[in-house]
């Protein structure tokens, strides 16, 4: 059955004052459009309650006429036994009462997938099998809108301030353009750079990806472009300044010709609007580093917040093309250089059964990062069923850190007991090489699939560190003043090989057998040599803080599963069995830490589709996480002498059970949706820490395993219309409960947190005005079994407002406000900033491609960063210096090959 519904709003309408109701007439023709169809049924169905308002049949000439149908939102449905149905969605009213459709061509009778097309309220949405398809042209966007602006208009899809996309409450992890990644894996490159006008359809579907521990369902968005937008170039040059301290500059050039894509970009700024927040790697497709699981111990640094004073420069290019019909080549290079300067002030309360004390800390932190990243990819279609993928990448990186930290320890009576001055510098240089070769083979038999993969990873890293710390005891408090002045050199070199075979065999039409085998080998060598200062040079070797480790890890993992799949439901279950052998050799002491772990990792997944737009899902999976080398090595890390860390050779891998239950339903015609998700994760042998507090307040922490950690919660949300679709109402609620065990001074400590939150967003979207207002309230009840002092409930309220209006003379005004109340912060940290931003812009030129705007950020000059963290028996309140009020004048020129109006690219 093929259903095609679309809106006839003013398309075929002629006004007729005298009619008593809806009047339909038209001619129905067959698919080939060469002869009229007689006897086809033409009926009108009221959309609200599906009531049949009237029907007729076409005459021998294919003509029909239906009169005196009541006014309503209704469906005109034409059906014929030999063809697919065709429907028109009509908003009937006395002004829109005569519908004449001169040539109705019925579609072929669909034999495979159901297709329901709904063009309702200018919002055409339909399902193609399991894929939700939005027809872009039917959603009104502003003149210069980019894909992201379009997405914000699509019902069921949300885009947050960072550009992260969720569909039906679930996050979209991948954005494709015409089925391919567009200039890298970062979704926002596509969504912020492609014009909404070039989009034909937006498709959203689910697929499963293996994340190493098991399969996970991810949502993929595929933006399909119109044919005429597949060739050409577009670009943007923009600059902004306040003529004093701040600047932003950006050059973006994209050239594409069907399959050839070339993009050159450069970007520099010293405002928070650099966009280099969440995962630099993702932003410019530097994903190979992040995917490398060989990289133990070195975590990719990302400055996620707007805290501090940033400076960023970035440049590079992306190239991809098809070579012949069978090969696809991709190459990209990115240079990145950024600084961050942060001034932090914090107050921490340490609460014990018998006493409390406080620390006050001032921290001055500066970091510079520089990297060159090169990625290459080659996709080869060996034949119609076989695909070979080769993906090598190289990343050269360097970063340096300089920080000064002064800490005062205060007793319960508020007298200073000791102070610490700390000076740290770090120079780090590294090289990463990764390569993946993957062979994907399909067979003539439907759903029989085979994949073989080999991955190689190499890292080489050298870090030079200087540590100067001066600890003094004051006011007669006991303790020996100590001075540390050390130089450390850390060398690490790792190599990894991974092989993987997976095979899918259809047993029957509905049952599938899934087999998977993985072999993982990792070898790492890490040495740290520490020298103390002798007054002239760093010559005195310090064995306490030096070490040399060799690390070997071998993992064998086999999994078998069964999948049952019908149109209505998917049911999957199976288990993975694995053996992990770890040999951690200390070359200094000639001792070994050996681990031999066997795991069974069962999983099951059930999805029931009441309809394409209404689903219930249940997932159970188990996962196990290995300790990192640093967590295992019993070596002191004194880079912060106030909190020294040490590894634990007996640390076991974790074992976690996770259950997820979700339901979502969405009604296309009413543009309403509702979703609810519940989760529960319990972890055995979870990684935690054992903290020993020295009498002077300094700590030593050690990684340990604990049982009984879990977190659980329930979230629900909905999108509704009120006042005849004038107002959108989006409520959401959530409840969560977490339990976390740790050890403090050899005593077991259990921390729980109960959280409640609820929010409501109201929005009005009219032709030239958009207004939205939202509020969120969350209430948290932390409880710690050891220390009752930290068990203070607190609440966080956030309010936000957004307003934009199109003004005459090609002008536009936008403003947004954020208000934030965090209760129960300590004195001096209990601030409630109100942030208001506004901008006024005017478009010039015939194409309106030149924009001049005035922007005011944080008009009330209130921006501060306040942060409270409660960790076991420690409550820490911290403020970080951020850029507050600033004004910018921005000039921006956009251009394209069409010499027409170009879509805006916004940056965040």
């Amino acid at each position: 059955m093929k259903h095609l519904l679309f809106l006839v709003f003013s398309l075929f309408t002629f006004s007729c004052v005298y009619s008593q109701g809806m009047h339909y007439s038209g001619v129905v023709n067959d698919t080939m459009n060469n002869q009229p169809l007689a006897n086809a049924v033409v009926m009108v169905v009221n959309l609200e309650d599906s009531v049949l308002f009237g029907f007729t049949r076409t005459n021998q000439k294919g003509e029909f006429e239906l009169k005196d149908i009541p006014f309503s939102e209704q469906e005109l449905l034409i059906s014929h036994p030999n063809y697919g149905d065709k429907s028109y969605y009509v908003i009937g009213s006395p002004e829109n009462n005569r519908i004449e459709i001169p040539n109705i061509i019925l579609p072929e009778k669909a034999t495979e997938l159901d297709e329901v097309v709904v063009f309702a309220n200018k919002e055409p949405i339909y399902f193609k099998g399991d894929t939700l398809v939005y027809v872009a042209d039917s959603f009104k966007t502003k003149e210069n809108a980019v894909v992201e602006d379009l997405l914000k208009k699509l019902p069921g899809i949300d885009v947050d301030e960072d550009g992260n996309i969720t569909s039906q409450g679930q996050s979209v992890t991948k954005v494709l353009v015409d089925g391919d990644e567009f200039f890298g894996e970062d979704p926002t490159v596509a969504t912020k750079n492609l014009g909404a006008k070039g989009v034909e359809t937006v498709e959203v579907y689910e697929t499963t990806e293996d994340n190493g521990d098991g399969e996970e369902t991810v949502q993929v968005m595929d933006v399909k472009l119109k044919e005429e937008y597949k060739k050409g170039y577009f670009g943007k040059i923009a600059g902004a300044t306040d003529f004093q301290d701040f600047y932003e500059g950006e050059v973006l050039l994209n050239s594409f010709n069907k399959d050839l894509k070339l993009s050159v970009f450069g970007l520099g700024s010293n405002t928070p609007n650099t966009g280099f927040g969440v995962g630099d790697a993702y932003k410019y497709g530097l994903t190979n580093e992040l995917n490398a699981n060989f990289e133990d111990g070195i975590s990719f640094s990302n400055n996620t917040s707007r805290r501090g004073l940033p400076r960023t420069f970035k440049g590079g290019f992306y190239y991809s093309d098809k070579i012949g019909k069978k090969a696809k080549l991709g190459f990209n290079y990115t240079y990145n250089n950024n600084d961050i300067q942060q001034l932090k002030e914090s107050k921490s309360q340490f609460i014990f059964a018998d006493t409390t004390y406080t620390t006050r800390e001032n921290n001055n932190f500066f970091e510079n990062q520089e990297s060159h990243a090169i990625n290459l990819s080659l996709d080869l279609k060996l034949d119609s069923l076989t695909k070979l993928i080769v993906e090598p990448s190289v990343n050269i990186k360097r970063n340096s850190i300089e920080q000064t930290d002064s800490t005062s320890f205060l007793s319960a009576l508020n007298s200073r007991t000791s102070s610490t001055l700390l000076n740290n510098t770090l120079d780090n240089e590294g090289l990463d090489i990764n390569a993946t070769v993957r062979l994907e083979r399909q067979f003539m038999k439907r759903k029989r699939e085979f994949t073989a993969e080999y991955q190689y990873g190499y890292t080489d890293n050298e870090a030079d560190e200087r540590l100067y710390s001066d600890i003094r005891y004051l006011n007669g408090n006991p303790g020996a003043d100590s001075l540390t002045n050390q130089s450390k050199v850390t060398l690490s070199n790792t190599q990894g090989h991974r092989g993987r075979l997976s095979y899918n065999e259809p047993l029957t039409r509905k049952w599938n057998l899934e087999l998977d085998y993985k072999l993982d080998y990792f070898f790492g060598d890490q040495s740290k040599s520490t020298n103390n200062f002798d007054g002239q040079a760093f010559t005195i070797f310090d064995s306490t803080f030096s070490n040399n480790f060799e690390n070997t890890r071998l993992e064998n993992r086999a999994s078998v599963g069964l999948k049952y799949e019908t149109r209505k439901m998917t049911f999957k279950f199976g288990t993975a069995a694995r053996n992990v052998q770890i040999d951690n050799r200390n070359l200094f002491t000639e001792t070994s830490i050996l681990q031999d772990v066997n795991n069974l990792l069962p999983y099951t997944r059930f999805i029931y589709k009441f309809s394409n737009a209404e689903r219930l899902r249940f997932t159970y999976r188990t996962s196990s996480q290995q300790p990192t080398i640093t967590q295992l090595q019993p070596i002191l890390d004194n880079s912060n002498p106030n909190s020294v860390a040490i590894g634990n050779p007996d640390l076991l891998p974790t074992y976690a059970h996770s259950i997820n239950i979700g339901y979502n339903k969405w009604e296309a015609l009413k543009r309403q949706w509702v979703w609810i998700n519940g989760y529960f994760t319990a972890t055995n042998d979870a990684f935690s820490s054992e903290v020993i507090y020295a009498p002077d307040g300094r700590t030593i922490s050690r990684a340990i395993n604990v049982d009984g950690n879990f977190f659980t919660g329930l979230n629900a949300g909905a999108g509704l219309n009120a006042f005849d679709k004038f107002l959108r109402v989006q409520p959401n609620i959530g409840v969560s409960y977490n339990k976390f065990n740790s050890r403090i001074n050899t005593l077991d400590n259990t921390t729980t947190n109960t959280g409640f939150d609820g929010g409501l967003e109201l929005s009005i979207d009219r032709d030239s005005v958009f207004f939205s207002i939202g509020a969120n309230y969350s209430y948290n009840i932390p409880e710690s079994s050891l220390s009752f002092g930290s068990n203070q409930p607190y609440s966080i309220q956030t309010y936000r407002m957004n307003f934009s209006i199109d003004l005459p003379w090609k002008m536009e005004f936008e403003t947004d406000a954020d208000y934030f109340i965090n209760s129960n912060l300590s004195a001096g940290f209990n601030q409630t900033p109100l942030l208001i931003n506004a901008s006024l812009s005017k478009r010039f030129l015939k194409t309106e491609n030149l924009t001049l705007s005035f922007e005011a950020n944080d008009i009330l000059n209130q921006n501060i960063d306040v942060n409270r963290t409660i960790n076991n028996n420690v409550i820490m309140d911290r403020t970080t210096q951020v850029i507050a009020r600033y004004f910018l004048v921005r000039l921006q020129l956009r251009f394209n090959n069409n010499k027409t109006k170009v879509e805006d690219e916004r940056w965040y």
Partner: protein
Amino acid sequence: MNAGIKKFATLLLVISASNVFGQFTANGKIEFQRRTNLEKKFKDNDSPWMNKVNLKKPKIESFYLYFNDSSSVFLPSDVVDEDPRMSWITSKNKVYQNFKSDELLEIMSFWGSELVVGDTIKERVWKMTNKRRIIAGYDCRRAIWEANDSTTIYAWYAEEIMCSSGPETFNGLPGMILGLATEDGGVVYFAKEVLKDNFDVEKRIPKVKEKDKLTEAEIRKAVTEQYGARKDFNVKEMLDEMFLW
């Protein structure tokens, strides 16, 4: 494509095109089978008589519907009931509907006597669905009639049969109703066979005396006046059930 294949394709097209016009049915006879689930029908009845009859077994009866483009006659089959004690349990209405002249003639049995209904065609509010099933080889679409708060009736109709009629007094869908069922499945009509032929509908109209004709409203009024005061059963419910079909 060579000329021969082209010709052949054209021929195929012509054949399939002629099929399109050939397949619509304007005249014919439909055999319906009605299954009545007596347990459901009498679930609230605790009369001792009920213990004597086999309620487990569904009662199966046949009906014929003769139709042309604008009228139809619905008649029970001549086959007698297996168990004569149970014949009265189910209705055996005879119905003539003329959609051109908006005329309904129905002969129903009321406590052993015949009632003649002469009225206009019954109108029902149909709700359309996308559900489909094949009945007697015809692709049918399901529509729903919410008769009252407690009764919902499903109807499957075939567009390929041009006459907008159906079993009993049912009509009003863009095609012939080939399946009719109460939501609980207590009473189900399904077409077993559709014969395409020119049957004389007029000839089969039940003969009645013009003076015996009463409208539904008149019957309701008369019956309520007669039996409305009775405590042992609900007259309105009985009438609603009678005129439901």
